[in-house]
């Protein structure tokens, strides 16, 4: 089969990760307002998550200290600690501190709240990104006319969302942890930061950032796929 003209059609279209990263970063800085809102929702959800985790670490430390000193906590003192509401109501007056089921119920409720907030955050991000895709239909169509593959478009949107996720989560983890540390320090003395288990705390913070990034990534999948499906002729459309 002889082709009269035209060079060989090679599969030579590429967009390196570095280039995609640069383009995504620029996109964020252009639409800083919307990016800030998206990042803020992650920030809040992850601040909540890391504050719950930090509370756990601090309370473990306090519990350990109390056992070492052999003090028996009265129920009154137990109730006055932040985050321990309702323990008195479940009959924890046996002189041995908090009732096990009361604390468990508390813990479960807290985790339920955190999960809900993360899901709400995910829905919010998906919504914001879908809006972004709708606004950028011409840009996406143009990129396809320039030769971009569907996977490039997906890549750009996922990177953009992951970037916002990491930035928002990092800020949220730091603020959430420090806030809780501060609040507990008021009660337990400002030597508290020196007494807690930092490796564990830092590990939890890193995990929070990881979770935030994953949530942002998951939230962006549907919008990114929608964007990738736009035809190149979208570049010609003059209305949304």
């Amino acid at each position, binding site marked *: 089969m002889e082709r009269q003209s035209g060079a060989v059609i090679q599969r030579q*279209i590429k967009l390196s990760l570095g280039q995609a990263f640069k383009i995504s970063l620029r996109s964020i800085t*252009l639409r800083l307002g919307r990016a800030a809102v998206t990042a803020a929702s992650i920030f809040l959800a992850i601040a909540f998550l890391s504050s719950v985790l930090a509370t756990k670490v601090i309370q473990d430390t306090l519990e350990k200290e109390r056992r070492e000193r052999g003090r028996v906590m009265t129920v009154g003192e137990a109730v006055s600690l932040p985050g321990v509401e309702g323990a008195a109501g479940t009959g924890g007056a046996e002189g041995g501190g908090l009732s096990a089921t009361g604390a468990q119920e508390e813990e479960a409720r807290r985790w339920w709240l955190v999960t809900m907030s993360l899901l709400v955050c995910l829905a919010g991000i998906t919504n914001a990104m879908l809006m972004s895709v709708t606004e950028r239909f011409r840009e996406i169509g*143009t990129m396809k006319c320039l030769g971009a593959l569907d996977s490039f478009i997906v890549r750009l949107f996922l990177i953009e969302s992951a970037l916002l996720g990491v930035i928002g989560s990092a800020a949220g983890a730091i603020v959430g942890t420090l806030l809780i540390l501060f609040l507990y320090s008021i009660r337990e003395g400002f030597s508290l930061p020196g007494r807690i288990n930092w490796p564990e705390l830092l590990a939890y913070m890193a995990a929070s950032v990881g979770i935030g990034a994953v949530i942002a990534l998951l939230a962006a999948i549907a919008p990114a796929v929608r964007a990738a499906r736009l035809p190149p002729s979208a570049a010609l459309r003059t209305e949304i």
Partner: protein
Amino acid sequence: MPTIKCPECKEEVDTGVVATVCPNCKADLRPAIEEEARIREDQDVSRKAEEDGLVAEFIVRTKDLVKEFVLGGTVLRALKGVKLDIRRGEYISIMGPSGSGKTTLFNMVGGLDKPTSGTVYIDEVDMAQLDAYELAWLRCRKIGYIFQTFNLIPVMTALENVTLPMIFAGATQDEMMERAIHLLETVGLGDRLHHKPNELSGGQQQRVAVARSLANAPAIVLADEPTGNLDLRTGKEIIDLLRQLNAEEGVTIISATHDLKMIDVSDRIVHIRDGVIERIEDRSEIDLEIGRLEGAED
């Protein structure tokens, strides 16, 4: 002796010495060797064809093009059997009122959309046979696009906008920069390389778009209403620019337009109405009308 890159371990293997197995990872090299031979054969054929002057005379050919859109319950027949052949190096304008199928035909010949029936050959390659990768390659390397709304990426400077197609084509940083700067200078924007689109006027943005369309030295430039959003004088500048490119670089230009100023520079004008080609005017026929239309303009 030719060297082959092993698909498994990426080592360069001298095929003159070794037979069919990669000395590094023992992968079977035969498919890679065959592919290499095929590529070389194709290149030889192309080179020979060009030397013999056998390059395709028609860079775009359409046969019985039909495009139907299903809108709600009704079927809208945008194109009702269109045959159009465009020669290499031609400057052709497609003109027609709204709803005539002008944009649809434009999308067909530009590889932006697939017909319901009929075929489009771009450089003798049937568009329908191409997969997503090959279509992307086509749009990247063979066709350049210019839009009515300029469509520059707002987050990138003029220089970066022009280099974007080159990034997709896998050019090196040095090549990209050199060529992009040269292109922007050709369109007269050598002093505006690092300006973002919102710092450029409409005419300047369109010039960047023209430079971008030439980034990978395409055979065809597709222009959709290039002067639609420009005032009279800037529009004329862009038309002159396109005419200059057509004359000097031999790039085939296909434009869909309402603009009567385009008539003067086109080699042929395709008038389309109601999904069929009404008539095709040739350059020689047009000259007689210009006096009446343009009047005392400049």
